């Protein structure tokens, strides 16, 4: 599904990703761990097409398509979803406005018609239940006045509503108490299916107890320096990253 080959990317002229390769197949869950500043968020943003990140070498294909030539909105419509490490507050644009525009953008991309008001509301209510968000909150501006945990749950809600095929979640588990963590992982597991793939960027083993990964990778100094199964995450939890950075 996702094929990243020898990816090099710079931010402000500084090379952050230095030859990263990773293959993610449909149905798989990959966890990417690594020290702060190693380039995890950079990878996520490059995949989502964020401006300001330039790819200097390498390739990324998504279902055989060259992802890097697509505008960010087209990537989203193709089914790529990025859960932000720091979700943005947008007063004046309500959550519902964003959701409806996002749903209709996808439908338009696929040549479909706009969603009916009744269907939209029913769908929102249904999904909001999973992440325990009161639909009332969705009439507010995007993430406006949301607590840290609510913002993360809102990312998962957007994901549940948009039903992407590739879910990239950048530290969605950081700063969550155990109840919120449970809600977030329920959300992720709801979408888990043989047609979908998940990339979890995380610091902690905790999330991986709820969302079992098939593969665990360590990103350091702009590349994947080690890959393994779920046991690698436990090893990292015990030993930290020092032994890998030295390697």
């Amino acid at each position, binding site marked *: 599904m996702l094929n990243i080959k020898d990816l090099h990317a710079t931010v402000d002229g500084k090379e952050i990703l230095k030859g990263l390769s990773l293959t993610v197949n449909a149905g798989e869950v990959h966890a990417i761990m690594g020290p702060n500043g190693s380039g995890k968020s950079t990878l996520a943003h490059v995949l989502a097409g964020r401006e300001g990140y330039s790819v200097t070498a390498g390739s990324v294909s998504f279902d055989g398509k060259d992802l890097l030539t697509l505008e960010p909105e087209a990537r989203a419509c193709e089914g790529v979803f990025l859960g932000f490490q720091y979700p943005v507050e947008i007063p004046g644009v309500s959550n519902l406005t964003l959701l409806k525009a996002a749903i209709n953008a996808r439908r338009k991309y696929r040549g479909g018609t706009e969603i009916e008001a009744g269907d939209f509301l029913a769908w929102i209510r249904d999904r909001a239940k999973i992440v325990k968000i009161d639909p009332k909150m969705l*009439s507010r501006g995007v993430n406006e006045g949301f607590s840290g945990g609510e913002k993360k749950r809102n990312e998962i809600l957007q994901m549940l509503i948009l039903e992407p095929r590739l879910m990239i979640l950048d530290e969605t588990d950081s700063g969550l108490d155990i109840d919120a963590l449970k809600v977030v992982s329920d959300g992720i597991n709801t979408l888990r299916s043989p047609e979908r793939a998940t990339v979890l960027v995380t610091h902690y083993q905790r999330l991986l107890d709820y969302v079992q990964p098939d593969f665990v990778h360590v990103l350091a100094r702009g590349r994947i320096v080690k890959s393994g199964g779920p046991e690698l995450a436990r090893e990292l939890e015990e030993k930290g990253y020092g032994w890998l950075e030295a390697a």
Partner: protein
Amino acid sequence: MKLEAYRKAFEQLAAGLGDTPSRDSRRAQFERFAAVGFPSKREEDWRYTDLASLSEKQFALPADGGDALIPQALADSQQLVFVDGRFDAARSSTQQHIGNIATTETADDDGLAALNAAFASPGLDLQLAAGQVLAQPLHLLFLGSGSATGTMTHQRHRIVLGSGASASVILEFARDSADERLATHTLSIELGANASLRLYRLQRESAGATLLTRIDARLDRDSRLRALCLDAGGGFVRHDCNVTLAAPGCEAEVHGLYVPQPRAHVDNHTRIVHAAPHGRSREHFRGIVGERTRAVFSGKVVVQPGAQKTDSEQRIANLLLSKRAEVNAKPDLEIYADDVKCAHGATVGQLDETALAYLRSRGIDAATAKALLLRAFALEILDHVEFAPLRRHIEDILDFPDDPELDRLIEAIA
């Protein structure tokens, strides 16, 4: 000779008036204009809006019978249509409230006021007796015909509300051809005790148009003025709005939104004078200024001696969409009373790129995402528009991605 074309136009007008007192007082006004001329850039109030080139223009008076495309009427309102400065009874839904306002007095010795008084054609004359309530908003449309190229129009308007009377008035300036035209409008407002007026001034003139409007309002005890100014056109525009809270307990809201088109010039000058105690004034202006466009805002608030317990707030925010956009925003407070609450602030910012990226990451195309953010910025001002058909009309003018169905949903869910 300077202002020659104006004199020629005036003599033409005067000849049609015959030997009447009106002609004499108009002539006095014209001579005053001829002596003073247009305001100069050297005057502080006209620093950014240079009218010098108007002196050399050859504007003529428009011929009768100009025809313009009349836009669809707003629901639940009465239309008064003016084409080329003349009232068009056939296209209006009421013939009431039209009048020729006496040209004898002008507020001060401003050359523009004299020019306007000398040439003034009939305009709005809304006079409500004590306790009278205007059932529907009056929507005045100032349109231009295709045959009025190179012409000038001048109109005087008046709103006098008796005590406890209330009304809602919309002035919309929408001459939509790209040739050069000049229009001046003056509006004097008197609000009796406890009277209430909602006033909307909408401008969507096209490039080539020069529009100079001036409002002078005087508020009597416990009266309330709520004014909103929207600029969305491409012309060269100057608005003056002078409000005096002349008696205790008055409230004045003067809000504005300017989203000028490329190469437009929009200058809003407001002056709010608290002349009596316990007055409240609110002034919120927001601007979205793009490519090669200049926006000027000058907001003066004066709290006169004795105007204790004044509560005044002025906030200005501008969004610059281009490096070649220019904004001059100047708050100006003069406070001569000690027991008052006066706040003011002005900001200039750019579109939030992080928010834009966030919306795009959800599949929303860049143009829609940008429009959503611009609307979000404008919302604080738009939310002051309580008359729903007008709100819709304004969102249309601004080309905002508004969605009434979704708005109802949001209200239902909240």
